[in-house]
Every structure is written in C-alpha cells, then in structure tokens.
C-alpha cells in the first residue's frame, strides 16, 4: 500500500497533474467563497472542462475543487459573516465575531489550519479504510448489493432535514426517474411516454446538473430584489497576517476537539448523500456540548471555528471512501465525480482499487497534495476574497447556466441531455418549494438501475425471497435499514416533543388571570 501511495504521490507531483490540481483548488476556493455558489455548482461548471483531460487529470481538478471549496467558504464566513457554502454555516457563528473583535487574521487562519488538519485526518481514514472496505465488498452478491443500496437510501431519507416521509418520498421519486426508458436487464423499452429520447433512459448527470445547479440558481433568483442581508464586513484594511506558530499551538492544545470534529466529519461523509453542512453543524454542536465554556460559543471562541472547519474538510475524505469502495456517492460532489469516471469508461466500486491501482492511489495522492495547495491558495487569495464576493449575481448566474448547458450537451453531444437538464431544473425547483429534500432524490436516480439489476439478478439466481433476510450480510444491512428508519422516527418525535416543550415554556402563564 505504502509503495503504491508513494508512487501515486510521485505521479501527481508531475506538472501535468499538479496544474489541474492547482487550478481546481483555486476555482474551488473562489467558488466556495462566493455566497450562493455551492461546491456542487462549482464542480458541475468545471465538469465539461475535464472531458478532454485524462481521468487522473480530471479527477485531480475535481478533488482540488472539492478540497478548495470546503475551505473557501470560511473566507466569507469569517470576514463577511456570510457562509460561502452551506458547509461553512457554523464557521460564521464564531469566525465573524472574532474577526469583528479585531482578530480577522486569527479567525481566518485558525479556520484554514483546522481545515488543513481535518482534511489530512480525513485522508488518513480514506487511505486506511478504502482497501479493506472494498475487499469486504467483494464478498457481496446481488442480495447484499440490493440491501446496501436500500440502506443507503433509507439512511439518506432518515437524515434529511425535512421529515422522514418527505425524505423517503423524494428518494422514491428518484427511483421512478430510473424506471422510465428501458429495462436495464434486457434493454426492452418501457414507460417511454411516447418520447423518443427516453428510450435510452435518462442519464443521471443532466438530472444532477438540473436539480443542483439550475434549481439552486432559481432559488437564489427569487431572492433578487428582496431584502438583502446587510453584510457588515470587517475593515477591508485590517491585517490578516498572524503568527502561524502561535495558531498551530492553539490547535495542538486542543487535540481531542480536532480529532473528534474530524471523526464526525468523516462519519457524516461516509453516510451517502449527506453533505458537509450536516458535519459542520453536528461537530459545532458536539464541541459546544463538550466545552468547559459553552457560553463562549457564538461570541468568537476558537473552539467553534476549529470544530466547524476541521469537520467539513474531513467530510471530503469520508465521502470519497464510499464512492471508491462501494461505488455509492457520499454526496452530490462525489456523484459528479462518479459521472466523470463513467464518462472515461471507468467503473467505480469494490474492484476499482484492485483494477485501477494507479488511478485509485493517484486520487489519494491528489487529495493529500490538495491540502498544502489549499493553504498556499488561501494565503494568496484571502485578501482578494472581499472583492470577488461583490461580483453581481446577475452577471455570474447566466455564465454558470451556459456552462451547465455545455456540461449536459457535451455528455453525448446531444441536445436531449439539455432538455433533460431543463425539465429536471423545473422539477428540482418545485421539489425545493414543496420541501422535498434533493439529496435522497438524486441518490435514488443514481442507484435506481443498480437496485433493479441486483434485485432481478438475485431472483434469477434463486427465486427464494427469504435469502435477502437469511444471508448474514444482506440481512444485517436490511436490519440496519429498518433501524435507521426507526431511529429517524424516534429522533423526529423527540425533536417535536422538545419543540412543544419550548413553546409551552415560552407561552405566558394565564392560569391566574
């Protein structure tokens, strides 16, 4: 493993890989810093640029975007009080107050170093677990794969911010998309609704572009002209220079916080389609609970920044594990990576690491190298961040939409994919307005065919349906699915009860009057 990793690092250290990695990191930091532009949107915009590159070059650029974007959000979060990405939301809670107290450099660089170490801890997890998990997954038959995909969907539905039912419904709508077009076993047309291009089925990347980029832009467009949050930036002339040794000392003095927040980030990353925003919030919440001074949170405490930023970068490593070991995207960003691999004719999953060791260890190496690159980019870029965020959205969004169109079109040089983008952009926006979470939907679209193929394969091998439950791994995974749904229900009820108690406590006492 170590030889392969060393070879991977030597490989990625070549100029032809370093350049896309560096460009990706810069683009990621800029995209992450721009409020309203998510990392998913940035990676979707960059996708068509990777088509002409070799797979490792393209993936290096994407990993650069992912790592850079996860850290980039903290620039605006600390200096403007606006989270650049959802995964830097809680960074604003303490980063901005600290910056406004006259320590913008400390706030920013604490976040950068926490991102760096959190990301590297995520990298250790990625490298250490992908191989063994992939080897374990090689024991899977169609029953186990079917159960694994069901578990992924049920976990995503359960962890969705909306209700469990809405999460499940969104996931099911995603599965419905995959039954339109052709039967994946025999290629027989079904439910084509008389539309010719549906006979080939619906490719998931245009759907993803439509749902995540297009619908997200529309959600931002509806706010244009409304009341805007008056961003009260820190003094633009304030010094961002700090003593790095002192800041590193601040981090080292809190090893438990750094490690625990990173582990939360990794764990959330491993869960399919749950993004860095959940990791960010959960790590912040945990840091506050474990802190000796919880009352200092929200007022500019370093613990808040360290927890928030280490978790969202560690999350990247966790997300890459599931895609490389099981072929299940950890979030929307890795879903785009999955699409990029498919375009290059590479199948991700348990065999990926053994069949494509150069590429797999190249991905590990790119991930590790992206972190020092991110620190360098941040050192150069942070000063300009305040200017970049003033780019009007009315100028930015049309260009992003054109790149989305090119991305969808270039997938097969066909306008059909652009029409799919348009249709799913509308559907995504309507789902957003209806309060249906998009993550389970997109996971349903990605996994739908695989669920069907494995279900039918299992039935063809042995028609006994009890095998899904009696085979130990399959049964265990299905049991875990039921447990995750039950846990989500219990959690939902508990939060409802707490909310009721809070409302009752806040209500004025009228019994005496």
């Amino acid at each position: 493993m170590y030889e392969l990793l060393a070879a991977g690092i030597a490989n990625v250290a070549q100029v032809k890989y370093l350049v896309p990695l560096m460009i990706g990191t810069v683009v990621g930091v800029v995209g992450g810093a721009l409020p309203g532009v998510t990392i998913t949107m940035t990676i979707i915009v960059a996708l068509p640029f990777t088509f002409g590159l070799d797979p490792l070059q393209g993936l290096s650029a994407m990993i650069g975007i992912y790592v850079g974007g996860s850290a980039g959000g903290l620039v605006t979060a600390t200096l403007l009080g606006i989270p650049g990405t959802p995964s830097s939301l809680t960074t604003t809670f303490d980063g901005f107050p600290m910056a406004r107290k006259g320590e913008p450099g400390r706030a920013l660089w604490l976040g950068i170093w926490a991102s760096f170490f959190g990301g590297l801890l995520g990298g250790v997890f990625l490298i250490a677990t992908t191989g063994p998990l992939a080897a374990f997954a090689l024991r899977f038959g169609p029953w186990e794969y079917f159960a694994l995909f069901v578990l992924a969907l049920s976990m995503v539905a359960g962890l969705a911010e909306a209700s469990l039912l809405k999460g499940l419904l969104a996931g099911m709508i995603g599965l419905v998309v995959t039954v339109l077009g052709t039967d994946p076993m025999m290629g027989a047309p079904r439910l084509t609704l008389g539309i010719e291009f549906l006979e080939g089925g619906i490719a998931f990347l245009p759907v993803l572009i439509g749902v995540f980029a297009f619908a997200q832009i529309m959600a931002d467009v509806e706010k244009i002209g409304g009341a805007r949050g008056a961003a009260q930036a820190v003094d633009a002339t304030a010094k961002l220079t700090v003593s790095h040794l002192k800041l590193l000392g601040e981090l080292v003095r809190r090893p438990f916080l750094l490690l625990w927040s990173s582990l939360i980030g990794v764990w959330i990353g491993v869960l399919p389609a749950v993004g860095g925003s959940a990791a960010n919030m959960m790590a912040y919440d945990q840091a506050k609970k474990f802190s000796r001074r919880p009352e200092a949170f929200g007022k500019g405490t370093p613990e808040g920044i360290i927890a928030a930023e280490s978790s969202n970068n560690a999350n990247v490593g966790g997300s890459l594990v599931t895609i490389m070991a099981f072929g299940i995207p950890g979030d929307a960003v890795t879903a785009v990576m999955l699409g990029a691999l498919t375009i290059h004719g590479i199948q991700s999953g348990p065999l990926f690491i053994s069949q494509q060791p150069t590429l797999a260890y190249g991905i590990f190496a790119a991930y590790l190298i992206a972190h020092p690159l991110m620190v360098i980019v941040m050192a150069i870029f942070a000063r300009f961040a305040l200017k970049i965020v003033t780019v009007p959205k009315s100028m930015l969004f049309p260009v992003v939409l054109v790149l989305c169109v090119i991305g969808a079109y270039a997938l097969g040089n066909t306008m059909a994919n652009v029409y799919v983008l348009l249709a799913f952009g509308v559907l995504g926006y309507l789902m957003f307005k209806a309060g249906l979470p998009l993550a389970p939907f997109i996971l349903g679209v990605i996994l739908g065919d695989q669920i069907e193929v494995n279900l039918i394969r299992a039935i063809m091998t042995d028609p006994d349906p009890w095998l899904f439950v009696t085979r130990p791994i399959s049964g265990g995974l299905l049991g875990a699915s039921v447990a995750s749904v039950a846990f989500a229900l219990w959690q939902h009820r508990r939060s409802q009860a707490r909310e009721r108690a809070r409302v009752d406590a806040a209500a004025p006492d009228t019994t005496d009057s």
Partner: protein
Amino acid sequence: MGRDAITGLVVLAASLVLLGLTVGLERHPMLPVGPGFYPRIVLGVTAGAALLLLALDLVSRRGRAPAARRSGPGANYALVAITYGIFTAYVLALPWLGFRVATFAFLVAMPVALEPPRDARRWVTVLVLAAVATAATYYAFERYLYVLLPRGTWTGL
C-alpha cells in the same frame, strides 16, 4: 389543502398513471419477472408514500386555524418565471441559432432581466461580458477541449 397535501396529490396521481402504463408490458421469456416487475414495486411504494403525506397533512390541518401569512418581503416569483422563460428560449433556440448567437443573446437578455441596466455604462458592461464569455467558452470548448458545440440550422454558425 396545504403544501404537503398538494405535493402528495400530484405525486400520487403521477405514480398511478405510470402504474397503469406498466399493465401492458410484455414479459421476457428468459426472465422470471417482466420489465414491469420492479417499476410496479417502485411506483406502488411511491403512491403509498404520497398517499400518506396527503392524509397526514389533511388530518393535521383538521380543526387547526389557518396559519397567518408571513410578513416581510416575499419571493420574487415573477423574476423566476422570466428567468425560466429566457433559459427555455435559449435552450430551444440553440439548434436553430447555434451556440454563438444563442449564447450571446442569452448572456445579454438574462443579466438585463435580473438587474435592468440604469445607465449606458452598465449596458456596455453587459454587452462586453456577453461577447467575452461567448467567445471564451466557444474557443475553450471547440478548440482546446474538442467539444463540438451546436451549430445553427438558420445561421450556419
């Protein structure tokens, strides 16, 4: 009827229509189950979940006073509709006008719709940005990334 009930009703109707379409699907002789087997499971569960959402919303609303309208600035749906309209027109025009003409027109129309220019300087910015972005994307993709962008049937460009 609330938002969840409407969502449930729409999804329920769509799943039932699709479920009806699976009835005539012919079974392949080599497979133990036909091409309609899995869609029926998916659509059945979807219909069930949609029905539950509809029912829960109706039950929870019974006997409850309608929620007061939220004050403050609302969403700018007119702008969303205009944006959709412009983007749809762009997508539909691409095969007829070609990438360069359609993209330039789109990159002028969209910023103008989102934030109408108040002075000549702003117009110049919009036009220059549209020209530069169109040229940059065209050359980057056609010349360097070998993506053959759509040609216009009407314009030949």
